[in-house]
């Protein structure tokens, strides 16, 4: 898909995020907006998937796991826009009886979701398990997982980070949404992550870096990562992103991590985001 088309989809996804979070007056817009380009590129261009025939087992296709489940508005919008479930269902986000729970779950049977996430630190391990299943099955597709940067503070991340290279899990691409912000403030202040690149390299990962809000860079890097697969080591992409990307007043601050815009703020945000595919 040409870059311009992906950017148009991403614009609509960002509108969906604002409208969903505004609609129920809760949710996590900042991280959702920042990670939109990465996951749009995965689902609309880079992953080999079959949305019309969603299979829980993911056999014979690429798989994606969202470890930082709080950026669910982005995930839901992309799944719906990609055809996993009706776009109009986005209006039910976080409302009683919805399949679009606050954090993603399989309990309500939403197509596209394979495991619950929300409690942080688990997704990388799940992805390693799924990747090993593919190896056992002789399935040459890849497993992708998106994590938060604050999530790197969870100890379990480093259990999985140690395991995957040691066991040669080389059909795995992990991506860190490296926006350098978390709920309480900048990651540097909350708990300095140090040199993430050096840490993962020391654990045996092949580390790539990209500008996570530049669609061309995202596509190029994901392509490069696929080319590097099956060469003995898992891959880690440090995606330099901006929390709140696309909405000026939501950028440069951690304040929109988990806050919903009011009517005026939502209107302001939507005025900055082109409606490209039709609002739900």
């Amino acid at each position, binding site marked *: 898909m040409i870059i311009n088309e992906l950017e148009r989809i991403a614009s609509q996804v960002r509108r969906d995020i604002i409208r969903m979070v505004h609609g129920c007056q809760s949710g996590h817009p900042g991280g959702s907006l920042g990670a939109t380009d990465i996951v749009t590129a995965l689902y609309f261009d880079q992953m080999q998937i079959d949305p019309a025939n969603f299979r*829980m*087992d*993911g*056999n014979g296709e690429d*798989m994606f*796991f969202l470890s930082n489940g709080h950026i669910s508005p982005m995930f839901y919008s992309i799944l719906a826009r990609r055809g996993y479930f009706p776009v109009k269902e986005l209006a039910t986000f976080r409302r009683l009886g919805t399949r679009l729970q606050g954090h993603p*779950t*399989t*309990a309500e049977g939403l197509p596209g979701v*394979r*495991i*619950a*996430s*929300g*409690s942080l*630190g*688990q*997704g990388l*391990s*799940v*992805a*390693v*398990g*799924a*990747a*090993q*299943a*593919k190896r*056992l*099955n002789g399935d040459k597709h890849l497993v992708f997982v998106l994590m938060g940067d604050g999530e790197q503070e969870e*100890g*379990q991340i480093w*259990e*999985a980070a*140690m*395991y995957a290279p*040691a*066991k040669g899990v080389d059909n795995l691409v992990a991506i860190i949404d490296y926006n350098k912000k978390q709920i309480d403030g900048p990651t540097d202040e909350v708990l300095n992550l140090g040199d993430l690149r050096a840490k993962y390299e020391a654990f045996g990962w092949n580390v790539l870096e990209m500008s996570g809000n530049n669609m061309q860079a995202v596509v190029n890097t994901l392509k490069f990562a696929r080319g590097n697969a099956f060469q003995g080591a898992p891959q880690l992409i440090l995606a330099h992103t901006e929390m709140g990307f696309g909405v000026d007043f939501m950028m440069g601050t951690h304040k929109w991590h988990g806050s919903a815009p009011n009517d005026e703020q939502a209107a302001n945000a939507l005025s900055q985001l082109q409606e490209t595919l039709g609002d739900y």
Partner: protein
Amino acid sequence: MDFTIQNNKDTRSGFGEGLLEAGRRNPKVVAFCADLTGSLKMGDFAKEFPKRFFQTGIAEANMINMAAGMALSGFVPFTGTFAAFSTGRVYDQIRQSVAYSNKNVKIAASHAGVTLGEDGATHQILEDIGMMKMLPNMTVIVPCDFNQTKNATIAAAEYEGPVYLRFGRPKVPNFTPVDEKFVIGKAQMLQEGTDVTIFACGHLVWKAVQALPILKEMGINAELINIHTIKPLDMDAVLKSVGKTRCVVTAEEHQRNGGLGDSIAQVLALNMPCPMEMVAVNDVFGQSGTPDELLKAYHLDTPDIVEAVKKVVARKQ
């Protein structure tokens, strides 16, 4: 039931044999172990199916979630470590990625209870049944001897859904039939009686078996039922038996809070209130000692079951 002792074996070895058999029957059965392959008796499986065995190192959280990820693709993963590290240490992982996500993961938990012995309270978990039974979608199985643990392991592999399988370290009398089909959720009648019902699980089943002749001499005709599946609880069997005997003793190597007795009490309070006594650990941690010493010290032995029966029968009258 024939109570002849066939041999003395550890229930963990029953798990090891059951896992191997399950692996032979179904190529989708895989196993993870967090550096306790010998303790969990998983070595034979690892040797016969090296590609289906995953040594995780001492990283239980990663192990549980990898198992959940692998279950997605149709595999039947067993995770193996001590019960203490199979539950409390990984409760959040099990809750979100196994129970809530309803993944087909089998959590094999060895060295449960005080009979772990000398290692002491850090390893002697007495709260695990409670933690696991509180989780929606989770099945909780506590077999009583080697044969039953082997058969329960095979049954767990054939069952679709999360299972917590609890067993132990010491060699104990092995008396249930070899290759008896294990039916999850179906209580096992060991001896019919009329005066009192003893519901037991795990190692305490044999302790209750030993109480039967003592009670008989005292003129008490006790019914003994092995509740090897704590959840789902066989309510029909419980109510049918208690409807006849009208008083109950429960026996388990677990805290009173959250254990088998707690489950039985809930059923009876709601449906058939009657006198009840609980042989269980009462809100304290364990300590170092031999298994036999500890069972005595924590009042989990045959004389304790006998005393509880005497007490509850007196309360009935």
